[in-house]
C-alpha cells in the first residue's frame, strides 16, 4: 500500500514538472482569430466563423459575445496577441472610443459595415394595409400608456382596436404576432420602434435623462393581455399565421418579408415602406446598421484575418442571396456593398478624431 501511494505521488510530481514549462510559457503566438463584441452581430459572426473554419485551411475563429461597448473596450486595449483582432458592434464606433484606441496604440482601425438589422410589421396581402406611426405602434403594444385624457400619468393599456389608438386607422382589433423576449429581433424592435414611439411624448423623454431604468421600463414593456401574441422564435411560423388571419400583424426580420412577398406585405411606418432601398438608406425607422472593426496591425501576424475578411465580405456571405441573409441580415445595397468590399480590399483606415 505504501509503495502504491509513493508511486502516485511520484506520478503527480512528474506530471506537474512536465506542466511547468507550459505554465511559464507566456503567449508569443496565436494561430486563430479572436473576435469579441455585440450579441446582435454574434449570430452572423459565428456563422461566418464556422464557414471560414470549415472550408479553409485556418482554424475556426473564437467569437465572444461581450456586447458592443465591452467588445470595443477590449479591442482598444492594445496591439498584440493577447488583444482581440476584431470587434463586432451593432452601432458605429464612437469618436471617444477611437481616441481611446489610439491612446493604446491601436491607430489603424478598419471599419466594415456588414448590413442592416431591419424589422418589419407585416400583414397578409389580403388586408387593406396599415399606415402606422411609431407612436401608434407604441400605444398599441405597450403595457402602460400615457393617460388618453392628456394627463402626464401612465394607465394600463386598454386599447382594443387600431382606431382607439389613432382615429385615422381602421377599426380592426389589435392582434400582433411577435417574437419572444429571448429573440434579438424582439430586442431591436423594442429599442427602435417602441422607444421611438415612446420618445414622441416629451414628458416621457424627459424621464430618460433622469431615470434611465424607469424610462426603459415604460417604453420596453410589452402588454401581456393577449393583444400581443408571442409566436415562437421561428419567423416562418408568424408568416404562416398571417396568411391564415388577415386581421393580424406580424413582427419579423426583413428577409422573411422579402421571401414571402407573395403572401405578406409590410406596413408603412411613418409613411415609409419597408423596402430594400428604404432600409439600407436608413429612411425606414426600424433599422440599424451593423459593423465590425478590424485591427490592421494584426493582419499578417495573426493567420487568416484577411481571408476572414474575404469570406465575410464575399457575395456568398454578405450578398443579397448569401447565407447571412438566410439568418436574417438585411444585406447592403449593391452600390454600398461594392464600396465596402473595395474599402476592405484596400484596408482603408479610419481617421482618428482630434
Amino acid at each position, binding site marked *: 500500500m505504501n509503495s502504491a501511494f509513493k508511486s502516485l505521488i511520484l506520478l503527480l510530481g512528474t506530471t506537474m514538472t512536465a506542466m511547468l514549462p507550459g505554465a511559464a510559457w507566456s503567449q508569443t503566438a496565436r494561430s486563430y482569430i479572436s473576435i469579441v463584441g455585440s450579441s446582435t452581430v454574434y449570430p452572423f459572426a459565428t456563422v461566418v466563423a464556422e464557414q471560414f473554419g470549415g472550408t479553409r485551411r485556418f482554424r*475556426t475563429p473564437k467569437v465572444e459575445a461581450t456586447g458592443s461597448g465591452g467588445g470595443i473596450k477590449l479591442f482598444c486595449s492594445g496591439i498584440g496577441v493577447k488583444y482581440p483582432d476584431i470587434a463586432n458592434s451593432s452601432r458605429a464606433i464612437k469618436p471617444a472610443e477611437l481616441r481611446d484606441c489610439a491612446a493604446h496604440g491601436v491607430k489603424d482601425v478598419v471599419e466594415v459595415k456588414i448590413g442592416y438589422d431591419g424589422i418589419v410589421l407585416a400583414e397578409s396581402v389580403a388586408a387593406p394595409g396599415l399606415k402606422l406611426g411609431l407612436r401608434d405602434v407604441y400605444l398599441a403594444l405597450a403595457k402602460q400608456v400615457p393617460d388618453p385624457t392628456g394627463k402626464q400619468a401612465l394607465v394600463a393599456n386598454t386599447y382594443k382596436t387600431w382606431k382607439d389608438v389613432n382615429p385615422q386607422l381602421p377599426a380592426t382589433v389589435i392582434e400582433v404576432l411577435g417574437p419572444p423576449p429571448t429573440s434579438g429581433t424582439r430586442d431591436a424592435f423594442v429599442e427602435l420602434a417602441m422607444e421611438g414611439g415612446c420618445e414622441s411624448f416629451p414628458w416621457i423623454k424627459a424621464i430618460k435623462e433622469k431615470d434611465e431604468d424607469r424610462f426603459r421600463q415604460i417604453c420596453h414593456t410589452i402588454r401581456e393581455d393577449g393583444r400581443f401574441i408571442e409566436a415562437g422564435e421561428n419567423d416562418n411560423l408568424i408568416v404562416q399565421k398571417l396568411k391564415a388571419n388577415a386581421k393580424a400583424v406580424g413582427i419579423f426580420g426583413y428577409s422573411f418579408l422579402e421571401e414571402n412577398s407573395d403572401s405578406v406585405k409590410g406596413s408603412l411606418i411613418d409613411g415609409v415602406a419597408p423596402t430594400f432601398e428604404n432600409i439600407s438608406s436608413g429612411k425606414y425607422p426600424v433599422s440599424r446598421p451593423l459593423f465590425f472593426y478590424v485591427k490592421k496591425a494584426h493582419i499578417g501576424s495573426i493567420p487568416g484575418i484577411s481571408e476572414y475578411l474575404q469570406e465575410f465580405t464575399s457575395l456568398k456571405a454578405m450578398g443579397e442571396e448569401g447565407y447571412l441573409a438566410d439568418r436574417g441580415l438585411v444585406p447592403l445595397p449593391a452600390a454600398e456593398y461594392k464600396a465596402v468590399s473595395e474599402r476592405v480590399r484596400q484596408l482603408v483606415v479610419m481617421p482618428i478624431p482630434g
Partner: protein
Amino acid sequence: MIADDGDDGASRQLSPEETRRRVDASLRRRYRAERRFRYYGLCSVCLGVIFLVILFGTIIGNGYSAFRQGFVQLDIHFDADVIDPDGGRDPDVLSVADYSLLVKAALRELVPEVTSRGEKRELNNLVSAGAVFSLRETVMADPGILGRKRSLWLPLNSEVDLWLKAKLSGTDGDGISGRFSARQLGWLERLLADDRIELQFNTAFFTNGDSREPELAGVWGATKGSFFMLLVTLLLSFPLGVAAAIYLEEFARRSWWVDVVEVNINNLAAVPSIVFGLLGLAVFINFFGLPRSAPLVGGLVLTLMTLPVVIIASRAAIKAVPPSVREAALGIGASQMQMVFHHVLPLALPGMLTGAIIGMARALGESAPLLMIGMVAFIVDVPSGPMSPSTALPVQIYLWADSPERAFVARTSAAIMVLLAFLLVMNATAVWLRSRFERRW
C-alpha cells in the same frame, strides 16, 4: 422531580401510583415526539427524492432524443471537374472547393422534378449546411475518391430532424410540419418511404465541438476543455493543499500568525466563485499576460477556489491519524519529517484524495468564474492542450440553452446528462478510494 417545582411543598411526596401515571404520560409523549420526528425525516427524504426524480425525468425526457440524429443517404458523385478543375490535386485547391454543388447535384438526382429556383432552394434546405464539411473531410483524407461515386449518409437539417423524430414517434411536435411547404413534406415522405432517410446514433454529438447548426454541435470540445482545466486544478491544488495542511498540522507552532492563516482559509472556502473569476482576470490575464479563454487560466482560477477545500479536508484527514502512530515513529528514532512522510501521510492520503475529488467535482460544475476570463465563447475547434481556447461543459450548457434554434433544447439536456455522468464517475472514484485504502482504528 424538577418538573414538580411549580407545586407547593406539601405535594412533594408523590404516591407510587401517581409517579407511575406521570411517567407513563411523559413516556407516551416522548414516543409520540420520536414518531413525529421520524415521520418528518422520512417526509424530507421523500420530498428530496421526488424533486430528484422530477429533475432527472425532465432532463432525460428532453434530452434522450438528441442522441439520435436524422440522416439522408445520398449518392455523391465526386466530380473532379467541380472540385479540382485543374487536376493538380493540390490540397489548397481541394480545401476551398465548393462541395455544396455535389450535395445539390445528388439531391436533384433523387428529386428530378425540381426545376425553379425557389424549389431548388427548398430542396437544398433539407440537408444540413454541415454536409459539405464531411464531404470536404472525405476528399482531403483520400483525394483518390475524385471522379468516383459513393453512397454517403449525410446529416439532415435540424428542423427536418425534429420533423422526422415527431413523425416516427407518431406525434406532431408543436406543429413542426407547419414549418415546411407541402412540396417539402411530399419529398420527405417519399424519401422516408424509400428508406433514404433514417435516424442513426448521433456520433457527432460526442466527437464535435460547438456549432451553430444543431445537427453538428457536440460536447467533445467542451469536455476536453473541462478535462484540461481539471487537470491543471488537480496538479496545482492537490500538492499545494497537502503541503499546506501538513505544515499547519505537523510543523507550525501555534501562534497568532497561524491562527490568522487558519481563519482566512476557512473564509476563503466560502467566498463566491465569481470573485475568483475577477481575481483571475486581473492577475493571470492582465498582469501575467496569459491568453483569454485558455483552460490553463480556468484551471488556475479554479485552483484558487478549490485550494481551501483541499486544505481543510487534508487537515481533517491528518488529524484523524492517531497520535500513537506519531509517537511510536518518533520513539524508535524517526525524524519529524520521516514520521510525517513514512507514517502519517500514507494513512491520511485516502481522506485527502477524497476531499480533493469532492473539490474537483465542485470545480467541474462551476461556470461563473469562467465568464470573466473569456471561456464563454463560440469555439468550434476541439482544444488540443491547456493553452488552446476552449469552453467547459457547464458553459456549453449555458450557451446552448440561450440559442434560438429549437433543436438545441434537446442538446442542452443531453449535455447536462454528460456533465452529470462525469460527476457520478468522480464521486464514485472518491467512494472507491475511501473504501479501498481507508484504515480504521
